[in-house]
């Protein structure tokens, strides 16, 4: 396979992805779902950076996503930062929390890594729960108001659902493009080495622990950005954002779509939210059918839905 062919395919991939984001709100039965697909999609793709590309199963990503959401919300509400400043703060908060959790968790492996990240994320949850003076405690962070978006002298109406969708879509598209470049970079190659064979990576001079740490922090940045976007979108940060079920959800989305594939987690988020919304129309017990579909996917498509589609690599 020539490099030129790969570049061309990658070019088309970006174009197709952009086109998909443009038509997405008109394809879905509910426009609100489209924005959630963007946000959770970005979250899942960011999560996949550690799970799919370095092989670390984190059960603590709620703390990174929720941390970003709270940071963005607080920046708007208390610090009076402009919306883009608030988003940057969300991104930085996600990375910083990932740094703290990472330092403590990265030395453990496998299921232990999952347990330590889960425990530390629960600590973040209780911190937010207790510090109700700052975070609003169990009521969540309320009163985030963002009606207008100013950019390059342009003022956009953030209340209009479609405008809001396209603003968020543009930011998500930029983040995905950055992530795609990251994965194609020399550092992306080093992450692949760690995922494929830690012992060989180490014997090749790669500081495996540092690579995992860096990947975790980068994943935290993307998760924090996704959380920040959710704060802007919902105008509230519910305490449930930090709940362990958020960590579980992103694992499910990632597995559903296909870990280790670029768009898989995004497709996983789309399928998950679509199922959730459709089933919720009929019954409030949406978890049962969604869980059954998830189990069926894991059993019959172990590479995930998107992973199954993209098994095209020639021998």
């Amino acid at each position: 396979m020539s490099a030129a062919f790969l570049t061309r395919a990658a070019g088309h991939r970006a174009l197709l992805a952009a086109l998909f984001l443009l038509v997405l709100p008109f394809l879905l039965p509910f426009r609100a779902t489209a924005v959630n697909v963007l946000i959770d999609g970005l979250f899942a793709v960011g999560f996949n950076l550690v799970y799919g590309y370095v092989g670390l199963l984190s059960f603590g990503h709620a703390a990174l996503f929720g941390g970003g959401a709270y940071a963005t919300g607080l920046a708007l509400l208390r610090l009076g930062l402009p919306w883009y400043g608030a988003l940057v703060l969300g991104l930085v908060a996600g990375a910083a929390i990932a740094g703290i959790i990472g330092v403590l968790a990265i030395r453990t492996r496998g299921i232990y890594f999952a347990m330590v990240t889960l425990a530390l994320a629960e600590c973040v949850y209780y911190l937010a729960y207790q510090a109700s003076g700052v975070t609003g405690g169990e009521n969540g962070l309320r009163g985030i108001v963002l009606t207008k978006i100013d950019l390059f002298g342009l003022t956009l109406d953030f209340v209009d659902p479609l405008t809001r969708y396209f603003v968020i879509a543009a930011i998500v598209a930029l983040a995905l493009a950055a992530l795609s470049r990251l994965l194609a970079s020399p550092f992306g190659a080093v992450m692949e080495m760690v995922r494929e064979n830690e012992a060989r990576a180490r014997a090749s001079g790669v500081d495996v622990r540092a690579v995992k740490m860096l990947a975790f922090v980068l994943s935290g940045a993307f998760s924090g950005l996704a959380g920040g976007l959710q704060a802007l979108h919902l105008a509230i940060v519910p305490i449930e954002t930090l709940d362990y079920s958020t960590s579980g959800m992103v694992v499910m989305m990632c597995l559903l779509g296909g870990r280790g594939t670029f768009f898989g987690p995004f497709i996983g988020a789309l399928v998950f939210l679509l199922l959730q919304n459709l089933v919720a129309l009929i019954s409030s017990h949406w978890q049962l059918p969604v869980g059954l579909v998830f189990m069926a996917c894991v059993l019959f498509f172990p590479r995930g839905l998107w992973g199954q589609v993209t098994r095209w690599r020639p021998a």
Partner: protein
Amino acid sequence: MNEDPAILRTEKVGKSFGRFQALAGISCEFHRGRLTAIIGPNGAGKSTYFNLLSGALAPSAGRIWFEGRDITGLAQHRFATLGIAKSFQITSIFPELTVHENVRAVVQAREIRLNFWRSRNAYPQFAASAEALLERVGLSGRAGVIAGRLAHGEQRALEIALALASRPRLLLLDEPTAGMSPEETQAMMTLIAGLVPAHTVILVEHKMKLVMGIAERVLVLHNGEVLAIGTPDDIRANDEVRRVYLGQRAH
């Protein structure tokens, strides 16, 4: 430092696992540009010594010097960046990447790791080095194959290419012919013999006969201690070696 004929020197290095002493203090010098073989019966401590030399294990006692520098207790990836590479006894490659990607990843990781923005394909020099290495180990025709699908002998050759890819001055090979057919073994031994004197090679081998033809020096371990050291002829003539090693295999 380049005046020093020894590239690697161990000073009374020992390793214990709990109460079990796998390796008593071993002092040895390995000369630059030579091929030294470490042999010994099962349980002699070969693998333990190899793991100490490659940094996979830290010694419980003693010191290790590489090019005049004390490297005792450094992390394993530091051994690699200093110029010590190893091949694994059990094939250790990147199974889902192509053969070419395997080698290129290691070549590239030596030079550049923390670039997050450029394309990894933007460095033709690394692809070229990878191709040259594949040529050398006889895998150029298989460059596009997913490494996990190679035949066993080919994977062993890739293993050598990966060890060479980090451009080591000292190459440690752990039973490189394990599980190979006689023809593959012969090809591998020719390949290894051709690595000196450009590289210093230390070869751990269970089968004594294999190394006698290509090694310049042979270190015989027995029960975690040095039994003998010398040229292959010295070793063949050594009565004690005959007794503990050759004798038991009825040669």
